[in-house]
């Protein structure tokens, strides 16, 4: 730094200074020095130019590396996603395949059973399967529709008022009422209930046998002809009508004709004992129910 130039004072307001004079003050100083001493000549000049050129090479290199790094980072994320999606897809296909295989084997077993056992035994077995939820059943019965009421958002707190949501206990009450009125088979949104089915709440979702079901809930039951009327008039009907009046939930019970209820997707055999009579080799006694019934 030369003496004739005013000494550079760093103002306390560094940012203002930065905005006012963004160029590195070194350039001005170097220019002033040059004005006094003259341009460097000969090898020194060349060395400096070479150094600057090398720095610029490094700069270009740096830019490219940074660019490539940024570009490489992005696909890494999408790649992971795509791989996950692919995995899900392949597993799903595998599940479908296995399900088909299981269905085929199930048919084989049924055919063999029919051949080996007599007609009467098979009929008895079928009745048992239908009653336990292992086989699809067809018949007349009742359809109960229960839907969530309005869930307004509080404008002040932003919280959703979920009082009018259908709870697991509501569905439990409906199914229990149907069972007690003589229903032989029940589904909730197509999920067949068995002796060990569960209807539970997990957060805001209702799980039937660990499968989420959503509003509107359609409980279909096969049973006596006046099942719907009995349900509507019984304690369950009164309960739901009160919910309708109080919370604006929707409720409707009507008779249905000739509906087919699917078999339960999964029935875990927990306890099995050999039947006292040797001719019927299959008898399952389920452990106490966990809910729903």
């Amino acid at each position: 730094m030369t003496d004739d130039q005013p000494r550079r004072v760093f103002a306390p307001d560094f940012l203002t200074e930065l905005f006012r004079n963004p160029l590195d003050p070194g350039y001005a100083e170097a220019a002033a020095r040059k004005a006094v001493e003259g341009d460097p000549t000969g090898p020194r000049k060349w060395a400096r130019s070479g150094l600057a050129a090398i720095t610029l090479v490094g700069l270009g290199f740096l830019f490219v590396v940074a660019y490539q790094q940024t570009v490489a980072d992005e696909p890494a994320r999408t790649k992971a996603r795509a791989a996950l999606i692919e995995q899900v897809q392949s597993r799903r296909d595998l599940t479908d395949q296995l399900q088909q295989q299981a269905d085929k084997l199930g048919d084989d077993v049924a055919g063999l059973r029919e051949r080996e056992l007599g007609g009467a035994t098979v009929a008895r077995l079928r009745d048992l399967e239908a009653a336990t939820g292992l086989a699809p059943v067809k018949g007349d019965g009742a359809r109960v529709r229960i839907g969530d009421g309005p869930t307004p958002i509080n404008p002040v707190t932003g919280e959703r008022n979920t009082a009018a949501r259908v709870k697991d206990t509501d569905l439990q009450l409906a199914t229990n009422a149907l069972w007690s009125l003589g229903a032989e088979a029940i589904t909730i949104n197509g999920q067949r209930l068995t002796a060990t089915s569960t209807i539970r709440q997990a957060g805001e979702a209702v799980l039937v046998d660990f499968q989420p079901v959503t509003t509107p809930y359609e409980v279909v039951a096969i049973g006596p002809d006046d099942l719907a009327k009995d349900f509507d008039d019984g304690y369950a009907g009164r309960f739901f009508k009160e919910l309708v009046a109080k919370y604006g939930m929707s409720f409707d019970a009507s008779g249905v004709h000739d509906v087919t209820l699917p078999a339960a997707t999964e029935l875990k055999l927990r306890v099995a004992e050999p039947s006292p009579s040797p001719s019927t080799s299959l008898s399952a006694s389920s452990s106490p129910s966990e809910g729903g019934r």
Partner: protein
Amino acid sequence: MIAVIALVAGIALGIVFHPTVPLALQPYLPIAVVAALDAVFGGVRAKLDGIFDDKQFVISFIANTLLAALIVYLGDQLGVGGQLSTGVVVVLGVRIFGNVAAIRRHLFRA
């Protein structure tokens, strides 16, 4: 002219060699790029002002990059890496902006 050729040569080298950045150095890459951009625009502006100086350019680039990296490193160690990076980016960003504005005035007289 030499500067542009050198810059293009560096880009070509980067494309040819396609280096992978070690994981430990990756947090410093964006800061290094911002410091490099600051040096480049400062140099261009100085050139247009007619006061470009090779030595000043080289030293300011290396020093700024190292200082920025050091600040980020210190911030990481202290647990305020993000905030200090922001500080570095703000300061360098302001300088880049000011210098580009000056370059614009030089080129377009506006």
